[in-house]
């Protein structure tokens, strides 16, 4: 009661400005009771930022994504996975059988340049993302089962979302970041998609960059460092449980470090505040530094399984090489490949023993969903079985070098690429290739550049330029842990079969697409997971993609920063902390 009164008073006092969003005290293990403010959170990235433009950006670690922090209609609560209204003023009013959402926008929010954030910003952002000429990475998020989601402005502070069907992921979908209409909307109306793409390149002065979120770009030094300053307009409507404006920090910086080792070195030297622990080696180094008293840091090993996948996909669209296309489309071949994948050795050798074997697209951290699909088939490491399957396809003879040959004497071989520089993936590929050799399959394994690889992977058409690719995915949400841009046919990352028309080729694909949307439309958690279980079964039978292993998620951060999640809330999905609640001790 008292709390409500306080809120009411606050409302009365600042009638012009917004009712703030209060970050729950339970979201941090360490309250900033001394009200420490200022300071810088120092992070690192592996390769330079490529753009500032939110509509052309494709990487997870990007300038737009950093600025988008704390800017979405809803925010997920790590305690119970529920969506809290954030930029929204309250829970939406749902109607039309769960397909229509009317959302009131919190009033008084401002962009970093002082312009008010209104319904127009959402409308513009949606329009640009959904324009295929722009080529936004989020394009797929605005379609459900091939049908568009539409957004209507009811008034300056009210939006109406119309979903073509019920969607469990509706809250996540609605939580995209609104970019300023007065920048992008203007350009889009005047010059269309091309004009939008020309905005906010790396050459743009940071002073022209506008952010709705907690950070705004302050400086960008190519190949070195990007610094973000806190957006004080954001702090006006985001408070901690004691009413203080957030974030506590003044700055957030990303240092570009050539490789993960440099990142670890910088962390051990106390130059950055946190770094991803890749494997046992990293943990051992950090532990040594802490034990020797050289580094004051907290190390939490094996916090949870990873929210990532690693897999090998085979290209079904190889018109130029019908023999290979036939092979890759043969389910027996793909099952044989799964039998070849020695996942235990991969965990032991490439992950240093800290990881789990995976057989499905669901990240290992989503244990409930994994449990729901327990009956789905797994094609575990079994070379004899692999040989048997290959013999069924017609590979019974071996040549002088010990490779399987078909009747024409052609060697059973394919090229497998991964991105150069990722040691773990290179080792996974090596192990796969070496195991394949044992049954007589020649795998030409070459690491190539990441961007190039992604270009090949996401290419569309009847003749796509690769045989097989070893890569991983991250992202997505825990409500419906199948990717909208992965599972349905025609999606951007439907990597194994991506013809021009985007049609499914097999019944299982169609079934998976159907089940995807069915599950997405199911609001009951248990029922949805059951649908997920069916989807996993189809996936297991089809083996469109051979899933390999997943490492464990470890947390390490320098003692100088506080405000991390309580241990129970930390995991690979929610990560280690809210940036808003982070402070320098």
């Amino acid at each position, binding site marked *: 009661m008292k709390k409500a009164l306080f809120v009411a008073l606050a409302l009365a006092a600042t009638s012009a400005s917004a009712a703030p969003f209060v970050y729950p005290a339970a979201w941090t293990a360490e309250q900033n009771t001394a009200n420490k403010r200022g300071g810088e959170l120092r992070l690192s990235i592996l390769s330079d930022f490529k753009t500032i433009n939110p509509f052309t950006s494709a990487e997870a670690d990007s300038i737009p994504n950093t600025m988008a922090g704390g800017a979405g209609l809803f925010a997920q609560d790590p305690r119970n996975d529920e969506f809290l209204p954030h930029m929204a003023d309250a829970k939406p009013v749902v109607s039309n059988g769960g397909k229509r959402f009317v959302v009131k926008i919190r009033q008084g929010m401002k962009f970093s340049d002082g312009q008010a954030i209104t319904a127009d910003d959402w409308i513009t952002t949606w329009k640009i993302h959904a324009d295929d000429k722009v080529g936004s990475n989020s394009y797929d998020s605005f379609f459900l089962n091939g049908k568009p989601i539409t957004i209507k402005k009811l008034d300056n502070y009210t939006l109406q979302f119309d979903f073509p069907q019920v969607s469990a992921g509706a809250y996540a979908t609605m939580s995209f970041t609104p970019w300023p209409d007065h920048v992008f909307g203007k350009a889009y109306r005047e010059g269309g998609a091309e004009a939008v793409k020309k905005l906010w390149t790396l050459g743009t002065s940071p002073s022209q960059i506008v952010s709705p979120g907690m950070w705004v770009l302050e400086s960008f030094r190519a190949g070195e460092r990007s610094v973000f300053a806190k957006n004080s307009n954001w702090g006006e409507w985001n408070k901690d449980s004691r009413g203080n404006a957030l974030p506590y920090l003044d700055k957030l910086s990303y240092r570009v470090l050539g*490789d*993960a*080792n440099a990142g*670890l*070195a910088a962390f*051990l030297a106390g130059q950055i505040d946190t770094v991803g622990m890749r494997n*046992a*080696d*990293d*943990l*051992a*180094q950090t*532990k*040594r530094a802490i034990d020797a008293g050289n580094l004051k840091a907290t190390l939490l*090993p094996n916090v949870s399984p990873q929210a990532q996948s690693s897999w090998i996909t085979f290209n079904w669209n190889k018109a130029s090489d019908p023999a290979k296309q036939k092979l890759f489309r043969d389910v027996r071949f793909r099952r044989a490949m799964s039998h070849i994948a*020695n996942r*235990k*050795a991969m965990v*032991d*050798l490439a992950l*240093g*023993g*800290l990881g789990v074997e995976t057989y499905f697209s669901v990240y290992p951290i989503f244990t409930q969903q994994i449990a729901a699909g327990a009956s789905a088939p797994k094609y575990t490491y079994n070379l004899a079985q692999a040989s048997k399957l290959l013999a069924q396809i017609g590979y019974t003879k071996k040549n002088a070098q010990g490779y399987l040959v078909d009747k024409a004497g052609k060697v059973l071989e394919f*090229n497998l*690429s991964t991105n*150069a*520089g990722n*040691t773990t993936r*290179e*080792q996974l590929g*090596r*192990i796969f290739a*070496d*195991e394949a050799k044992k049954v007589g399959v020649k795998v*030409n*394994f*070459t*690491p*190539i*550049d990441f961007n*190039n690889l992604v270009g090949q992977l996401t290419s569309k058409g009847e003749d796509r330029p690769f045989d097989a690719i070893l890569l991983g995915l991250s992202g997505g949400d825990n409500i419906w842990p199948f990717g909208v841009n992965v599972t349905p046919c025609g999606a951007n990352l439907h990597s194994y079969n991506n013809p021009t028309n985007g049609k499914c080729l097999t019944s299982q694909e169609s079934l998976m697409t159907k089940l995807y949307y069915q599950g997405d439309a199911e609001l009951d958690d248990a029922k949805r997971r059951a649908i997920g279980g069916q989807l996993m079964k189809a996936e297991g039978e089809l083996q469109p993609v051979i899933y390999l292993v997943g490492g464990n998620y470890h947390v390490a951060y320098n003692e100088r920063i506080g405000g991390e999640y309580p241990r129970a809330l930390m995991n690979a999905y929610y990560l280690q902390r809210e940036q808003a609640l982070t402070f320098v001790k």
Partner: protein
Amino acid sequence: MTTTVPERPAKPTSPRSQSQFGVAWSQFRKNRLAKIGGFMLILLYTLALFAPFIAPDGLSNYSTSNITRFHPPTPIHIRDPQTGGLTRPFVYQYGQQLNMDTFVNEYKPTETRCPIFFGVRGDEYRVLGLFPGTLHLFGTGAENPNCKVYLFGGEALGRDLFTRTIYASQISLTIGVGAVLISTVIGLLMGAMAAFFGGIADTLIMRFVEVLAAIPSLFLLILLRSVFPQDINPIFALYMILGLLAFIGWGGLARVVRGQMMSVREQDFVSAAQALGAGNGRIMWRHMLPTMTTYIIVTLSLSIPGYILLESGLSFLGIGAVEPYVSWGGLLSQAQEGGFASITQRPWVLIPGFFIVFTVMCYQLLGDGLRDAFDPRKRQ
């Protein structure tokens, strides 16, 4: 008769005449360091030649059931721990466990002893790609496949680093020599042509040399490498690197050859040969090139280490030898990928780096020795 002082008959004095090479050889033999360098190189090349025989294991062998990732080097025991007496050399089998406190994968010797035999049968191979064999210089035999000798320890996948280093020497030691030989042939030809034909040929060739010198070699290599597809046959990749290295390296030699030839051309014996109607090619090969031998020998021996270093650098940047083939630079770059753990927890992965250092040193000693031997001014 006016002679009062008796004379003795004049003695024919024959000054000891030695060929240029004879003199150089006798000089070289006096240089102890150069001799050591030369001897060590012969040793290294012999190791490389018989790599499959000397290496106890195959190039890319590892077990996926018995994890030997970063297996420490295994000391070879020759005394029985119980009796203290001499016994057949043996190593202990190691057990492996991840220490969940320190996160270090700990290896501890078990009680199992694996005797080392000489001349054991093992992995199949072909020496020089021709002579098949299964005999290995040493090894633990086939009785216990989980027990191996790890002279230099194991690498990231548990492959024997000694084996990989020895195999890598085949690439590292030949790619430098190969590139130098090819670039020498090109350099000689180009230089000789420039000198002999003069005029436009000379201008063009020398301008081209200037261009090659003006573009930083690393970038020229990177640029040339970018022309080729990334996913090429590993063997072809090696030839390609060889070719690229040779291509960027011939300029300096061509320039010197041209200079020397220009001066030699003025000398009488060439005119004499021309007067006798010798053809251009004949004059070039028979008369002019021999005057260059000294310079070439010295340059060759001094530029090989440069190429070895360059190759290691390319492998380090990921544009060198491709798995499963590997060069010393490649092994080193794999060690570098392990970060500081490579130095603190498993320093043995840096051993291939010292092979580079050692080889380059040997070549330097040899090259310096040759230079001093052929350089009359260095003689005392």
